[in-house]
């Protein structure tokens, strides 16, 4: 227990642990202090000065986020001096911010706008500084738009990119009146190490960093009677979407989401979970094949550990940072891209549709998926496999635009053929989920028995630790897999690219002895993705994770290889995992990139 100290906030006495910030202490007494540069996921910057408070006896005001409480402190959060200073600071931020709010994508969701509205900044007559700067809007990336004229230099994006992701694509450059957030040499985001993970978008308080949205394109496709518009939804969307539409974090809205998508006018509403299960079949088989190649055949070209390839942010990260280690990546496409390749082949054939007339849309918790869909190699159906990627947030916008009262919707089911999912597919949305799903299936293939964990819940791979490890001893194998008898399968899970870096560095230094590693670009996995509802925080992500695992437990089938539609597609179309068709449609190659 840390030492307790007593302070007074607005005259009310409160006891807090030594080291508690004034901001947190105030929260404990029910006093809200406004913030901008502060974010629970990030280190304290103390830059914006919106949270300044008065400490009685001190001439200067103190930033509540960066000032620790001291015994006997007498804090005022709403004094004359505080109120006036805070208004001044908000006015100053507005004067350097492009306040064309009505034409801003973040209109209604901007933290600066909200502050301006709370403090009723009606007579903002400071000089508009925007015209004095040569601002550019970077629209080259298929995922992210960066508009410097809306930036308020809180550096949340810079800290996100460095601390959470270890990517360092964004940085603070120049100083004084020229200070701004840039990339190396102010290159376009698309030309630097940016992984498109969108965490910066998720942490930006204003409209300076937003996703590139494709809402109008999708509306147009739906309106086009000659098009058959198919939509797929990623596992993490169903535990996040509710937050944008009036539900508390951690509410599962799967059935309502399907109903809403049907009302929006999509011709078929299917589930990325289906291809998540399919990924397990392909990736699990690939893992077992690699283990045989490396451990039994001693083939030096076969690389272990094998790394998962579902997260496009992670893929671009390794392409930039560890271009010599691309052989470690599973060749499996992500579930989104598997789905895309199958919609315009398998689905088109089964429904007797001209693939040219199919528009394939995906709803993702992710901005990097937009980049992934845009990769030149993702045309294996002979068409662009995925036409448009929308984030969870964009879907929420469409639902609101369509006038759908989401709370009142009745649950509906996904359409058949590629709409069936298992609990294993669902948990792809949480960090450790791909690992758990893969182990449930691979262990059973090899031994004929279920994984030796209570109720199939492989708890060691769950949780919030940045890097987690687990090992399973393989014993009493089936005859065909006897070469794995006695092998202790060593696995690791990493989420947030800063943790991916730790694991990769251990591989590079030769200290790693893992066989299989799951990498997810975003903290918490896809449920904490850059396309998920704003705000995000460790608590919100924990709620979403609870929801994902509840969804898994509620599923009648919880192992990918028992998904009836997966069984059917191998019977009717793919024949066998890693077969010729799979190889053509479901697997891919990677591109080494430079480190700019």
């Amino acid at each position, binding site marked *: 227990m840390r030492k307790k100290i007593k302070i007074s906030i607005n005259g009310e006495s409160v006891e807090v642990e030594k080291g508690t910030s004034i901001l947190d202490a105030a929260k404990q007494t029910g006093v809200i202090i406004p913030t901008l540069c502060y974010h629970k996921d990030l280190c304290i910057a103390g830059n914006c000065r919106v949270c300044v408070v008065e400490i009685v006896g001190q001439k200067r005001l103190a930033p509540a986020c960066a000032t620790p409480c001291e015994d006997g402190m007498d804090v005022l959060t709403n004094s004359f001096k505080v109120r006036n200073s805070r208004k001044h600071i908000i006015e100053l931020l507005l004067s350097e911010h492009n306040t064309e709010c009505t034409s801003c994508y973040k209109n209604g969701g901007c933290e600066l706008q909200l502050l301006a509205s709370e403090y009723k900044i009606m007579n903002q007559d400071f000089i508009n500084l925007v015209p004095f700067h040569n601002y550019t809007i970077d629209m080259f990336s298929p995922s992210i738009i960066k508009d410097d004229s809306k930036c308020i230099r809180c550096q949340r994006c810079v800290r996100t990119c460095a601390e959470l992701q270890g990517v*360092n694509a964004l940085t603070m450059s120049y100083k004084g009146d020229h200070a701004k957030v840039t990339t190396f040499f102010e290159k376009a985001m698309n030309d630097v190490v940016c992984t498109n993970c969108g965490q910066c978008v998720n942490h930006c308080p204003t409209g300076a960093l937003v996703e590139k949205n494709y809402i109008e394109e999708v509306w147009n496709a739906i309106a086009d009677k000659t098009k058959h518009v198919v939509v797929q939804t990623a596992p993490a969307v169903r535990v996040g979407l509710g937050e944008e539409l009036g539900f508390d974090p951690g509410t599962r809205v799967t059935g309502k989401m399907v109903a809403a998508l049907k009302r929006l006018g999509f011709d078929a509403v299917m589930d990325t979970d289906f291809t998540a299960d399919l990924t397990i079949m392909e990736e699990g088989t690939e893992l077992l094949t690699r283990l045989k190649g490396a451990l039994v055949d001693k083939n030096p070209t076969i690389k272990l550990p094998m790394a998962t390839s579902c997260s496009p942010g992670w893929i671009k990260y390794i392409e930039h940072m560890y271009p010599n280690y691309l052989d470690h990546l599973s060749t499996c496409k992500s579930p989104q891209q598997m789905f895309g390749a199958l919609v315009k082949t398998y689905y088109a054939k089964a429904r007797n549709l001209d693939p040219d007339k199919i528009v394939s849309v995906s709803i993702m918790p992710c901005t990097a998926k937009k980049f992934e869909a845009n990769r030149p190699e993702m045309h294996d159906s002979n068409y662009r496999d995925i036409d448009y990627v929308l984030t969870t947030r964009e879907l929420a916008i469409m639902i609101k635009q369509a006038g759908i009262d989401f709370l009142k919707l009745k649950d509906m089911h996904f359409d058949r053929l590629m709409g069936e999912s298992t609990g294993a597919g669902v948990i792809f949305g949480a960090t450790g989920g791909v690992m758990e799903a893969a182990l449930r299936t691979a262990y059973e293939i090899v031994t004929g028995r279920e994984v030796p964990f209570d109720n199939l819940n492989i708890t060691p791979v769950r949780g919030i630790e940045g890097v987690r490890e687990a090992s399973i001893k393989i014993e009493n194998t089936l005859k065909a897999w006897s070469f794995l008898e006695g092998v202790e399968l060593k696995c690791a899970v990493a989420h947030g690219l800063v943790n991916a870096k730790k694991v990769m560095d251990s591989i590079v230094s030769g200290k790693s002895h893992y066989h299989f590693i799951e990498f997810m670009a975003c903290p918490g996995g896809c449920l904490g993705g850059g396309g998920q509802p704003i705000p995000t925080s460790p608590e919100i992500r924990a709620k979403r994770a609870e929801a994902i695992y509840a969804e898994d437990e509620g599923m009648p089938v919880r192992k990918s290889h028992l998904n009836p539609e997966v069984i059917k597609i191998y019977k009717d179309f793919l024949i066998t995992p890693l077969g010729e068709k799979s190889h053509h449609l479901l697997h891919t190659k990677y591109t080494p990139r430079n480190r700019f």
Partner: protein
Amino acid sequence: MNVNLENQVDTKIIDEIITKHKGKPGELLTVMEEVQEANDYKYLDEASMGYISSKSKVPLSQIYSVATFYSFFNLKPQGKHTIIVCRGTACHTKGSKILLDDLTTLPGCKDAFDAGETSFTTDDKLITIKTVACFGQCALAPVVAVDGVIYSNVTSEQIKKLLENLQEENKDENIRLS
């Protein structure tokens, strides 16, 4: 004069500089300064920054971030001669603005400064004009530094003559070169 803008510093030289300063405080700043000094045009070129980053494991964006923060780092090729005018209050009061106006008669120079640039280099890479916040020579105002040598109580006539001399010297060189 043949100006090669692709000019970059030999990676061997950069390696030596990095090895020399390994583990010293503020290593990165010192390395960057010396690499800049090793460049024929006294600036940090993109390729050299990339090389420093790959060797020092400091992210490239952070190197750029530091380079743009300090006024000693140049991100553009510098001229053979550098004239720095002090715009500190004492110098300013004693007419340093007039001296700067004399120098900005160089073609393109005024536009560059008006556009907010803090440095200008002639196309032939002969002369760079810069300003400094304060030289700390206020008793001798106005002060101008030419290639590291500080001149005090500078007059408009002197600065014009100086500019002429630097340009003349170059003409001679051209004659010699041809």
